[in-house]
């Protein structure tokens, strides 16, 4: 299968690889996917008191498109508010990386990872109701 240059670039030089303290109150962690399906993404966001995503880290088990999708969204969410980050759509990710139809699920998983990380952060800070209203 031929990968787009952007997928190859993210695969070979992934951005923001790493982990943050998942127990910290200003960190939200999203873990989505399953090993049996061939994709597991862990996305973590660090949120400022003003509600801005200051930092993002990822770790992904999966194909090149899954790695690229999660690497890309760590770049995109940084500096965004939680609402702005939650508005990132899988189609934006798929278009940016030129994913073929069989790889669309990788972008869907990356979108799910963002939403899961935001949800985790909000549940820690008692904003669960806001999340429901926004969602």
């Amino acid at each position, binding site marked *: 299968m031929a990968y787009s240059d952007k997928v190859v670039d993210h*695969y070979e030089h992934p951005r923001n690889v790493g982990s943050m303290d998942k127990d910290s109150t200003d960190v939200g962690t999203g873990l*989505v996917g399953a*090993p049996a399906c061939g994709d597991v993404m862990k996305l973590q966001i660090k949120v400022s008191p003003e509600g801005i995503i200051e930092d993002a880290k990822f770790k992904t088990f999966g194909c090149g498109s899954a790695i690229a999708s999660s690497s890309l969204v760590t770049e995109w969410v940084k500096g965004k508010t939680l609402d702005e980050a939650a508005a990132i759509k899988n189609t934006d990710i798929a278009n940016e990386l030129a994913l073929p139809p069989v790889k669309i699920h990788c972008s869907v998983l990356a979108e799910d990872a963002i939403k899961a990380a935001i949800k985790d952060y909000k549940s820690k800070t008692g904003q669960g109701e806001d999340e429901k209203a926004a969602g």
Partner: protein
Amino acid sequence: MTIPSIGRRPGQPIYLDYQATTPCDPRVVEKMLPYFTEKFGNPHSRNHAYGWEAEEAVEQAREQVAAIIGADAKEIIFTSGATESNNLAIKGVAQFYKDKKDHIVTVVTEHKCVLDTCRHLEQEGFKVTYLPVKPNGLIDLAELEAVVTDKTAIVSVMGVNNEIGVIQPLAEIGAICRKKGAFFHTDCAQAVGKIELDVNAMNIDLMSISGHKIYGPKGIGALYVRRRPRVRIVPMINGGGQERGMRSGTLATPLCVGLGEACAIAQAEMGAEAERLRGMRDRLLGGLKQRLPEIYVNGDLDNRVAGNINISFAFVEGEGLMMGVKDLAVSSGSACTSASLEPSYVLRALGLDAEMAHTSLRFGLGRFTTQEDIDYAIDHTVKAVEHLRSLSPLWDMHLEGVDLKSIQWAEH
């Protein structure tokens, strides 16, 4: 004669997929060439010298094929390849003996062309038993003995598995079949030229042979059909009655010559070649094991051809791994890139879970593989696996001692 340029072209990955196919040995090509041009006669033309020289070449090739398996030349039929040979052997025997026998025995890890042939025969009313394999990929002889009955027309068990390289106990299987009165067919596409074969010592009644797996041309194979005691088959291709009526059609003289020469070379060089390949294979496995924890060999390591190693790399994903080893032409147990998302049925038959089957690589070493290739392959594979593990949340969990099976994953 080793030609370094074979399997090593600038800008192309290093070829380590010798179970998929092999390059034609230049010595084979050289023998074939005259039969395309000046010696172009129809080997079945009886009236002139063009026919006679072609016939002589074909018959010499038949002798060479017979010699490598301890058969008589009269027992060799040329076909288009091992797929046709497997079809002809199994369907041919089943059809011929169908009034008395209606049962076939084969193994779950056989090549698709054997399994699909058996499925086809099931639709025609034959009963098929698919034997399981042990975790090392070998069949249980007691289990085989238990399922072969006086209704069993044919037992089909491959000599060497194409994915994991394990060698089935052919002599023991042959003895059971002979005792029970069932014909023994073996798909030896991956075995000929790799291990010693003797159709008489092993009680083999039919054997499929492939040209392009043994440095011969593609598009040619052979089927060995025992004459004493005689095995009868119904032909699939009818016509001029060539190949003793079992496979009509004008023989492809250059391809026959190529297969014959490939067999002759393999027979002469098999011992030294196997030793050289085993050394490189052990170097590859040793190098990977030394630098990478959590890697597992699939299939029995002792009962295995020298040129194959199949390894699962835990906590990395198969397709991502293939992308990482882009400088190597290898095969993966993961079928992610094909239409189906099912991992290798052979690895699943060994009891591997889907994750471990997905994350396997098959390294196939062959005549033109060099130690330099192997050292590069070790380094390249280690770097790819380490890179992917550094990205893998599963690897982190493993290092933290988390049992991945204990986690409730959201299957998607």
